[in-house]
């Protein structure tokens, strides 16, 4: 499908340039994180303000609530070359819109079953609840996920994109 291509985004280009200059050749996964405005995105903010270190593999996409993340968005991310997708929202019961995260949970779980049939490793799609003040958890989640994805290697869907 035509449209926005991850490999052409400015930030990716800059990163690739730095890597080329430093002659780094190891695989760096790309994580797309859908973070909810009220909790997970604030957590990412806090992580930044508190200067917690976490890998630069993540691209945050702010959404108003995890309940608005269509399974289609997640698949589109994989289609366009993401190695992993993180869906992060408020704890169950804390949703700003009462039940958005419950819907997200149902959808992600259903999508996981489908991606399992397609042959995708389960670790590539992750659902996490992160409180607004919990910058540490956000940093840890990204670190943990980036580590796992590094071990797994590039997403099986990505080879098509290159060839």
């Amino acid at each position, binding site marked *: *499908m*035509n449209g926005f291509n991850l490999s052409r985004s400015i930030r990716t280009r800059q990163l690739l340039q730095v890597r080329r200059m430093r002659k780094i050749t190891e695989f760096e996964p790309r994580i797309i994180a859908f973070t909810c405005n009220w909790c997970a995105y604030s957590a990412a903010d806090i992580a930044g303000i508190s200067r917690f270190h976490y890998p630069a593999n993540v691209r945050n996409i702010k959404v108003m609530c995890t309940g608005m993340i*269509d*399974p*289609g*968005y997640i*698949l*589109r991310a*994989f*289609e366009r070359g993401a190695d992993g997708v993180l869906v992060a929202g408020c704890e169950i019961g804390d949703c700003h819109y009462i039940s958005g995260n419950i819907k997200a949970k149902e959808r992600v779980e*259903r*999508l996981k*079953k*489908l991606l*399992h*049939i*397609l*042959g*995708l490793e389960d670790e590539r799609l992750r659902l996490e609840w992160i409180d607004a003040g919990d910058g540490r958890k956000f940093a840890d989640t990204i670190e943990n996920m980036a580590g796992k994805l590094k071990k797994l290697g590039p997403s*099986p*869907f990505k*080879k*098509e994109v290159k060839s």
Partner: protein
Amino acid sequence: MTLEDIIKETKTYYCLECGKCSSLCPISRHNPSYSPRLMLEKALTGFEGDLINDQELFSCLTCYNCSLKCPADVDYPLFMQKVRTLAFAQGRYGVPADSGILQSFMRLMLNPAIEQRRLEWLSDEYRISEKGNILFFVGCAPYFEFAFEDFEAGALNIAKDSLKILNTLGIEPMVLADEKCCGHDLLWTGDVESFRKLAEHNARIIKESGAKKIIFSCPEGYRTFKFDYPHYVDLDCELQHITEFLAENMGKGMLDFKEVKKKVTYQDPCRLGRHLGVYEQPRKLIEAIPGIELIEMEHTRDESICCGTSAWTNCDAYSKQIRTERLLEAKATGAEMLITACPKCQIHFRCAMVSKGEEKGPDVEMDVMDIVNLVASALEDNGSE
């Protein structure tokens, strides 16, 4: 391919502007802004841009209702298929249903590197063979099962029951672990390149398996293999829908049905009926089960009404109205159950009964079942006694 080539190929220039297509079209009946005649007019009078940018371009169900009755023999569904190819090349596609997950899955499947785990539902209950002449094409059933989990699409049950029936007949079919989507939906939404890749993959693995005959439980796969694959790949196999196969083998006395006391009515799926001309075999199969009373609906056989959406695109309030209308018609026959032969018909009807759209139509409750499930249930009762 340009619009002129398409007009020539589908004999659109024969159009008499009689408007039979628009009066027969199930979409036009509910959606006043869609008209097949208008679409053809746009093409013939040279308004190519208007045609391609028309938001209704992807609404056509390609159900062949219009084309069968057309006095000038214009192949309107094929015209739609080709024009959508043009539109897709310009970056236009319809509104995908279910947030486009099904289309995404089809495209992700294109990748040769993936290893599908599509046969995890197979258990020892079903006997399959590694090598043989007969292949059972499972198709999208494992994906549908989870994609439509919330209203029990039952797509996987169709595959399971098909295997069960084939086993009862003493046939142990092959089932391929790395077959991919047949590409029907991509082809009908204009993505020819992806379709070609899927077709090439499927043709290759089927050739490698050495199958002589392929049995489908889904009419869409059957149609695609029969009419569309020959244009892209070379595959020399006998193709049959499971109802055709069973109707052929019924006389051998291997299937003895137990009595099922039910009044049923049969929905002709557009692909199986109008596209492929299979009307008699499913009816023969249903009537072979003792105790079953088959009542025909008002619109039946080649006049049957489609289930409202095709290729998971442009599913809207009008689609729901078409479905509700069809369900009401089925209800009016006094039947307890609506039998269909296409997994998608079943999904669409069940969806119409569950989802309450903004425009609330009349509520209809009706059992919808696939013909394969019905046959298997008649056999099952037999086994338990």
